[in-house]
């Protein structure tokens, strides 16, 4: 059992005052991320300011065999930043310098604590922006985005974090600093950047990120279409895709989600809509104008009873406000909820939504639906009241059934929130033993001692150099073994 006190002393020597937190009450403010269901108090919290300090903290952990978990803004939805009870929580929120905005190279170099939206704000004066836009972009950190391979509403057209990272500085779990890539593309060797992005903090800690900047589009046009039924909204989506249009975003919300958003931000969506579609096109004005007319017609043809076209940036922001605050807004119509993140082939959307509705009815819980209609990424919000006996269990059952549904239809258990600890138990439903074993070869290469965010992503850690399974539970207290 590691000597936390000795480690604390060592860290206090390496870092400045206020950068090592041991006060129990303060530690508890870090005991959960955006998934507040699970709380674990870290043994201590470190707030490094530089890559060297991150390396020093990780080295100290490596030397003493103490696990560590990295956290950015703590807004993740899969418990990826859930601390380890006998470990160090490395919080990068104070590493928030934008090192450089380089429009001539179409790159930005930032520290991991920099907030996603801040990159766009800094680049806009030069005519650029940072494309991946998770709904939490006003607070989520780029380091967290790297860990989760975050997406957002516009990833249908623009891709995810992994398509926008060209360089990384990382600290590997042995405390070494490694530089991967840079501003230029296609660095020689294995695509370790590609392996690292989306590895959910299990391969090390990013200390600097070089991202692509995207040229601001000449024209952006957004419409909000209200439909009398989800089927019609789904049909509209299919028609748009079939017409060869690649929208920047297509988002859908059902009646319950609309109700919540209305209560929260008064977005004023058309009343009586069973589903609304937000469709956004961007690009050269000449292209967008023609396609926009086409899209509007397709929506009307599919049965939209009201179509609103944003006249200016303010109106466009209002359309999006409802969608972007949907998760947190649901708190207004229900005391508790579980948010899912499954993906299904887009063509299966209407059928899957029907099945979800059946499931909800069968188990007596309500499900609000918000999703990226363009790429089939669903966010069913399973609503419940924990104070009512049995409701929490039923909600959990419905959640699990929805995940199974996604797998049944050939989709994924997580489109953007990550596996974390929340969905680790479902990973074996999607991948076989050999698949998970192979993925963990990567983990063994980076982190043979299992110090980086242990217990996340993979339900059964692979003992590196040995066959999987074995006496795992004893070595990894608190890890669920399925």
């Amino acid at each position: 059992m590691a000597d936390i006190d000795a480690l604390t002393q060592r860290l206090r020597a390496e870092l400045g005052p206020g950068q090592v937190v041991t006060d129990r009450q303060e530690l508890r403010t870090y005991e959960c991320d955006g998934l507040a269901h699970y709380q674990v108090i870290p043994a201590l919290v470190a707030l490094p300011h530089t890559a060297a300090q991150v390396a020093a903290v990780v080295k100290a952990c490596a030397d003493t065999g103490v696990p560590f978990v990295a956290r950015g803004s703590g807004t993740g939805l899969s418990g990826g930043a859930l601390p380890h009870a006998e470990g160090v929580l490395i919080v990068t929120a104070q590493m928030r310098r934008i090192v450089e905005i380089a429009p001539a190279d179409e790159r930005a170099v930032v520290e991991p604590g920099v907030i996603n939206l801040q990159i766009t704000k800094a680049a806009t004066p030069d005519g650029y922006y940072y494309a991946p836009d998770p709904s939490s972009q006003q607070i989520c950190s780029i380091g967290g985005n790297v860990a989760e391979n975050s997406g957002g509403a516009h990833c249908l057209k623009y891709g995810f974090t992994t398509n926008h990272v060209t360089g990384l500085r990382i600290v590997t779990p042995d405390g070494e600093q490694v530089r991967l890539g840079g501003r230029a593309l296609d660095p020689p060797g294995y695509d370790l950047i590609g392996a690292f992005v989306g590895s959910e903090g299990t391969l090390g800690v990013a200390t600097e990120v070089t991202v692509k900047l995207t040229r601001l589009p000449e024209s952006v046009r957004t419409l909000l279409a209200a439909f009398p039924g989800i089927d019609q909204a789904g049909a509209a989506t299919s028609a748009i895709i079939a017409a060869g249009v690649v929208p920047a975003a297509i988002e859908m919300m059902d009646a319950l989600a609309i109700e919540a958003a209305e209560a929260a931000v008064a977005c004023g969506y058309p009343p009586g809509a069973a589903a609304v579609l937000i469709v956004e096109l961007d690009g050269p004005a000449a292209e967008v104008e023609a396609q926009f007319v086409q899209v509007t017609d397709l929506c009307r043809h599919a049965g939209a009873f009201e179509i609103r076209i944003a006249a200016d940036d303010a109106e466009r922001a209002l359309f999006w406000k409802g969608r972007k605050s949907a998760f947190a807004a649901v708190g207004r119509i229900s005391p508790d909820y579980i948010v899912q993140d499954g993906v299904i082939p887009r063509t299966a959307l209407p059928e899957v939504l029907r099945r979800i509705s059946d499931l909800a009815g069968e188990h007596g819980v309500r499900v609000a639906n918000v999703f990226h209609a363009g790429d089939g990424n669903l966010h069913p919000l399973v609503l419940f009241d924990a104070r009512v006996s049995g409701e929490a269990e039923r909600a959990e059952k419905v959640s699990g059934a929805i995940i199974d549904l996604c797998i049944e239809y050939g989709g994924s258990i997580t489109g953007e929130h990550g596996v974390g600890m929340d969905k680790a138990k479902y990973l074996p439903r999607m991948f076989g033993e050999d698949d998970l074993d192979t993925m963990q070869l990567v983990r063994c290469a980076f982190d043979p001692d299992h110090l980086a965010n242990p217990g996340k992503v993979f339900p059964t850690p692979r003992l590196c150099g040995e066959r999987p399974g074995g006496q795992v539970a004893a070595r990894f207290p608190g890890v669920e073994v399925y």
Partner: protein
Amino acid sequence: MVDATWGTGEPPREVLRRDVLGGVDEGAFDDRHPPRADQIADCVHCGFCLPSCPTYVLWGAEADSPRGRIYLMNEGVNGEPLSESMVAHFDACLGCMACVPACPSGVKYDRLIEDTRAQVERRFPRGPRDRALRTAIFALFPYPRRLRLLRGPLRAYQNTGLRRLVARSGLLERLGPTLATLESLAPRLRKVAPPPRRVAARGTRRAVVGMLTGCVQGAFFPEVNSATVRVLAAEGCDVVIPPGQGCCGALSVHNGRRDEAARFARRLIDTFENTGMDYFVVNAAGCGSSLKDYGELLADDPAYATRAKHFAAKVRDLSEVLVDLGPVAPRHPLPRTVAYHDACHLAHAQGIRAQPRALLRGIPGLELREIADPELCCGSAGVWNILNPVPAAELGDRKAANVLATGAELLVTANPGCLMQVAAALRRRGGSIALAHTAQVLDASIRDLGRETQRQEQVTPR
């Protein structure tokens, strides 16, 4: 807090360790208006409030963010003791309420922090220096006559007990920068004539309004009050200004001194109740937001509960009432570039953003410019800048930089605290911009004062 399930499986063992760490203490709060568990439960831990919080922007530490403070309150409600660390984080909150409109779940953080601060003030034993400083602050600020003494030759208050109190507590040192700014902003103290008890409306009378003269406003910026009276009268209001009005209690309630605030509130209600006013007009943002809350402040007092509610319902910010009534007094051109600064207690607490802008845009020739990061507090936050001078200066510097970046000639704001804070920061940077209250700009336009008048508040480096 979403306090719920970990599924049908075994919960992670760590979750069950909570009882090992703490045991069931009496907790941080007693039964008198503690932060409410149901209001705390509204928070879903999404973190959307973090980027709007000045202390999170400055320090990047969870415990100094609204989300973190709510979490601490929850810890306190669930058994953690009221510790020095907890209190430090509560104290560090500016009370700017930028987090309230930012929250998608509608968490009433303003309510929560006020209840928490009241608990802290009543029950937490502060250190002697801290106590002395706070005692001095509250012996001074809610009393316009005593504030005025600060402006005059030191001789005037040298032999008063106040001076000894102020000096010993270290308050004078802390007030130093403020006083220096004050001196640079306004001419030396002259005997200021008290305002008349009643000023008649010009033309058709459309309303009778009571007016708050305020403490800092009345003592340091009496010309703002004069301008306010003139504008109200010009827009058809009879203005009733009872002499000897007291403090509205805002500073006290914002700093957890509930009983003191209630005393001030009762006095103010007594003073204005029988004036026959339709509205109670306030030209200081911090005061307005507290006044609108009088119903809640005196809810426990059977003698005043209903009267307080009725009183609160009449409270209007100056810009609010002017827009509600609709302008009648003709506006003359003021060809100036103006940056309008949203005072937190006007924008976040009262939701008043559009009205001041509408009034300014109604002036011909006036070009309105927006300041970057408008939701971020300037760092004044009542007396927060006196209690936390270093971070307040950092916030002030940020605001000053953003203000200067607009290139505007004139900075307009509706709160004396903001005005002093930003002026001080501008002086530090060697910047130069004219400053005025919204009332003064309107007054100048109505009275057709053109270019001359706006030179009065020039801030220049010494």
